[in-house]
């Protein structure tokens, strides 16, 4: 079974996502945002970029793309749905994940490797990782500052839905290690059933040591495991 990598006008990490998914054994195909049938796919990745130019608000126009009702259908059916960076923003705007991504606290775009601590393995993004594992993965965003209302955030914490947090190299989740002001150093979250997940850092940029880090593989391998689970 294949994974659909969704391409909105303005998406730009789609080829990287396919390359990275294939490197962990997932067959992946690009699907244009006007597609209305994803029945041949067992999972979905919404890759990074600037869907519809990110105009108005990130994800605001993308959530109305025709493909999104199919993405919702798959998510409801328990298929793995992963949003990376702009994909995460779209999942939030579409209501498939709670919260919103605001402008970085420093009001500047940030492109650099950051340290992440795995804080839950109960998701399609982290099931192959172990709690407390520290991963070095590049961040690449202007609106990566995760925020919710206090009740929603308490609910996320209570239910172990925050799967990755920004940390220092020793794994300590500190204010200083928070690159963009995200609430609770949140870098990635999952829904209640764990099959819909989103994160701001780019695991597909950390799959080979020749490019600096291969720590993103464990996250993509988690997605791959979930794909084969969906298959069986």
């Amino acid at each position, binding site marked *: 079974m294949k994974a659909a990598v969704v391409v909105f006008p303005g998406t730009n990490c789609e080829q990287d996502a396919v390359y990275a998914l294939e490197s962990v054994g997932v067959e992946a195909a690009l699907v244009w945002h006007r597609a209305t049938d994803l029945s041949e796919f067992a999972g979905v990745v919404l890759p990074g970029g600037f869907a*519809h*130019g990110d*105009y*108005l608000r990130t994800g605001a*126009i993308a959530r*109305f793309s025709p493909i999104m009702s199919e993405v919702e259908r798959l998510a409801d059916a328990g298929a793995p749905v992963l949003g990376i960076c702009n994909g995460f923003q779209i999942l939030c705007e579409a209501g498939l994940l709670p919260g919103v991504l605001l402008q970085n606290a420093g009001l500047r775009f940030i492109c650099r490797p950051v340290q992440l601590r795995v804080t839950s393995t109960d998701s399609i993004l982290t099931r192959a990782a172990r709690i407390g594992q520290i991963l070095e993965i590049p961040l690449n965003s202007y609106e990566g500052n995760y925020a919710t209302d206090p009740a929603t955030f308490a609910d996320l914490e209570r239910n172990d839905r925050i799967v990755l947090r920004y940390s220092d190299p020793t794994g300590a989740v500190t204010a200083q290690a928070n690159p963009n002001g995200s609430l609770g150093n949140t870098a990635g979250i999952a829904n209640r059933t764990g099959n819909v997940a989103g994160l701001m850092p780019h695991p597909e940029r950390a799959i080979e040591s020749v490019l600096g880090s291969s720590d993103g593989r464990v996250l993509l391998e988690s997605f791959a495991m979930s794909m084969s689970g969906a298959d069986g």
Partner: protein
Amino acid sequence: MKVTVHVQRRPDIADPQGTAVARALRDLGHDTVETVRINRTVELEIRGTDPAAIEAEVQTMCERLLANPVMEDFEVVVHR
């Protein structure tokens, strides 16, 4: 005193964001949309009692920082 500044791109300057939003609205079936321009509103609370002096000062703020006269027009409204 409360002051509102409306900043808008001059009509001859492109507004890519407005263009993209117009296209998206038409895509959603709102085919009555002719054009969309996206502008900016700045609200200020200014100390003082003389509306004319405040307006003049905010005018200067606009010229220096709040608007870019090369590509934007602005309008200052002092709420009495």
